[in-house]
């Protein structure tokens, strides 16, 4: 397993000599770069996975709506709402609301390259009751998350890494209960992401459709118990008219022992994001 992970890491970072143009508009994680100041980006993201129940197969889905707003060149915030049928009795319902704030504290630009570092914090209220060992900021639990992101663009290849802390703040965490728990409340999340521009090889206009390929390694280690997982997530992205992204992603577990949704079944994701430049300027 360890060999496989190092291989993936090698593929992710070892291609810096490749002359392919790269992107950092990752599908499963955020880069250290922000949305442009005074601009608005609206995103729908759907996550789908199949749960095998003894009597039937159930399609679990989560629908997220996000609005990213650039306050200035360094600071952005993003309200997020989710709906899902993943908890409760299988009916689609409002699930969570939260806010993500990212501050870019370091930016070093050169021709066709940059290094950026950002800090983020996310607070999310979820209506779900605690069920799984996997802790996320996607709506599964009420959480506070904070972390750091480092993104490097070298020779037209973008590699990004995130390391973050997740703390569950559901009320039931503090209810008196002496029995065994199936889940923890604290985890360390990390990701390593990489992206390539496959088309066009040479830019001609803003109207040209761009085609990107992404490969992301996403992992989590519980801090208050022995549980971990490492996922691999390849994704494709079309950028239409230089303002609309269409993403298609697949995420599966490489390794892990965490108690996760749908027995750690793979998931598909589909998202559409439209950026409105200069929305909030006089």
């Amino acid at each position, binding site marked *: 397993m360890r060999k496989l992970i190092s291989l993936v890491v090698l593929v992710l970072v070892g291609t810096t000599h490749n002359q392919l143009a790269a992107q950092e*508009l990752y599908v499963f994680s955020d880069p250290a770069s922000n949305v442009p100041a005074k601009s608005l980006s609206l995103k729908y993201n759907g996550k789908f996975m199949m749960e095998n129940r003894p009597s039937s197969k159930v399609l679990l889905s989560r629908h997220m709506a996000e609005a990213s707003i650039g306050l200035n060149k360094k600071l952005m915030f993003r309200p997020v709402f989710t709906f899902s049928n993943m908890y409760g009795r299988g009916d689609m319902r409002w699930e969570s609301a939260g806010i993500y704030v990212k501050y870019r504290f370091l930016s070093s630009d050169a021709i066709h390259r*940059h290094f950026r570092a950002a800090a983020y914090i996310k607070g999310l209220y979820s209506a779900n009751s605690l069920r799984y060992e996997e802790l996320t900021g996607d709506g599964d639990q009420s959480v506070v998350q904070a972390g750091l992101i480092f993104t490097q663009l070298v020779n037209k290849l973008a590699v990004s890494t995130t390391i973050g802390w997740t703390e569950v703040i559901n009320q039931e965490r503090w209810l008196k209960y002496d029995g065994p728990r199936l889940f923890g409340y604290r985890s360390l999340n990390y990701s390593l992401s990489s992206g390539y521009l496959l088309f066009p090889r040479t830019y001609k206009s803003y109207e040209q459709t761009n085609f990107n390929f992404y490969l992301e390694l996403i992992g989590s280690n519980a801090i208050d118990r022995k549980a971990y997982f490492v996922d691999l997530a390849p994704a494709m992205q079309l950028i239409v008219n*230089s303002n609309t992204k269409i993403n298609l992603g697949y995420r599966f577990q490489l390794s892990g022992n965490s108690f996760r949704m749908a027995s750690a079944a793979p998931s598909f994701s589909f998202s559409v994001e439209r950026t409105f430049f200069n929305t909030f300027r006089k």
Partner: protein
Amino acid sequence: MKKILSSVVILLFITAVSNAQIKKATLQASGLTCAMCAKSVYTNLTSLSFVESVDTDLNASAFEIKFKEGQHVDPEALRKKVEDAGFSVSQLHLEFDAKNHKLEHDTHLKVGNSYYHFVNVKSKEYNGPITLHVIDKDYLTAKDHKKVVGGSNLDCYKPGNTTKCVMPNHEVHELNIFHVTIK
């Protein structure tokens, strides 16, 4: 004391006032490779009131900017727009139509509401189109900026020190002086 000294030195500079205009500029942005990123720079630049049109060379992340007739061109505003998009200016060349302009090292030229301070230029009378290379900090990559620093010891026109440049006799706005060279 240092400040007073530099102010006195500045007073000695000959400031020519020019009616000529900066008609266009070439701006290269750094820190980006994607068309969507360039689009945000493009949109920001076109939102400026003195900008007539912007042509993009996506592969070079370069923007050719044409300015409106009779409008004051503010290089600072151009830079801010690029930075708001999330990137940096790595090169700014301003096209200036010289009409018998006598320029030499350490002279000032007023164009519109901006002062241009010439650094390391050949002393002569200039005629016809000349390209002014802005050499202040944040108008070049860090590497290129290092190369041009050291040409002078005077605080005022040490590139990157635009805010400290005050000319007591003129109503010069802070940040309104740009250090340029001609290549």
